[in-house]
C-alpha cells in the first residue's frame, strides 16, 4: 500500500463539509496520479462525503492507494437507505431545505459516484450505509 488514511465526516456541519474530499484530492495529486483519475476519485469522494453530511449521522472515509487502484470505503452510522434501487436513480432525493440551500438535492450524487467508479458496492441498513468505491490506476 502506498498510502492509507481515515477521515472523519461530521453530520450537518456545512462549514467543514468537503474537508475530507479536499484532503483526499490533495494527497492523490501529491502522490502524482493521473489528473483524470484524481478528478474521478475527488468527485466520488465529495458526493459521498456530502451525502454523509446531509443524510447520515456521520462516519468515516478510508482512502487506500496501492495495488493498482484507489479504494475508498465510506461508512456511516445510520439511519440507512430504505430503498437502494430508488436512491440509485437519477433525480431521487430526500434532501431537506438546508441541503438544497447550499446546492445539493438533485438526486445525482449516488449515480455519479457509480459512474466515476470502476467498481462500486453499496450496502445499507438502519445501522448505517457503506459504500466501496474502486478506481483503477492506469498502467
Amino acid at each position: 500500500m502506498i498510502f492509507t488514511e481515515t477521515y472523519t465526516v461530521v453530520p450537518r456541519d456545512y462549514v467543514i463539509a468537503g474537508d475530507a474530499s479536499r484532503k483526499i484530492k490533495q494527497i492523490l495529486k501529491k502522490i502524482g496520479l493521473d489528473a483524470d483519475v484524481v478528478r474521478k476519485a475527488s468527485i466520488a469522494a465529495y458526493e459521498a462525503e456530502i451525502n454523509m453530511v446531509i443524510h447520515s449521522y456521520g462516519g468515516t472515509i478510508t482512502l487506500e492507494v496501492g495495488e493498482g487502484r484507489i479504494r475508498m470505503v465510506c461508512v456511516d452510522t445510520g439511519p440507512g437507505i430504505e430503498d437502494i434501487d430508488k436512491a440509485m436513480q437519477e433525480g431521487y432525493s430526500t434532501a431537506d431545505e438546508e441541503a438544497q440551500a447550499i446546492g445539493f438535492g438533485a438526486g445525482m450524487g449516488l449515480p455519479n459516484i457509480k459512474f466515476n467508479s470502476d467498481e462500486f458496492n453499496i450496502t445499507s441498513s438502519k445501522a448505517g450505509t457503506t459504500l466501496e468505491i474502486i478506481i483503477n490506476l492506469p498502467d
Partner: protein
Amino acid sequence: MKVKEIIEILNAEILCGNQDTDIEVNSACGADLMSDVLAFVKDACVLLTGQINQQVIITAEMMDVSCIVFVRGKRPNTDVCNLADEIGTVVLTTEMTMFEACGRLYASGLAPTKRVER
C-alpha cells in the same frame, strides 16, 4: 475563450482567487445545483452560478474548474474568497442574470459543457 474576454462580455469584475485573465476556458456551464456540476465534464470550463457558498468553490476544486462567475451581482463572504485564493480559481461577479450571462457567452461562441456519456 480567455477569462479577459469573459470579463468584457459580462462586464464582470474580478472578486478574488487567481488574477490571471489569460487563462483559457473551453466551455461553460450554468448551474445552481452542485451535483449537476459534478455530473458534467470539467476540462477548463467556466461555471456560472447563483450560489455563493463555499461548496461552490470546493466543487470547482474537485472538478478543476478554472473560473467561476457569480451572477446577479452576488458577492460571497471573506471566508469563501479566502478559499478561492487558496485554490487558485478565478472568481468573477457580473450584474447580469444567469439567463443573460449564459446567453451572451453562448452568442460569443463559447460552447456548452457536455455531459459525460453514461
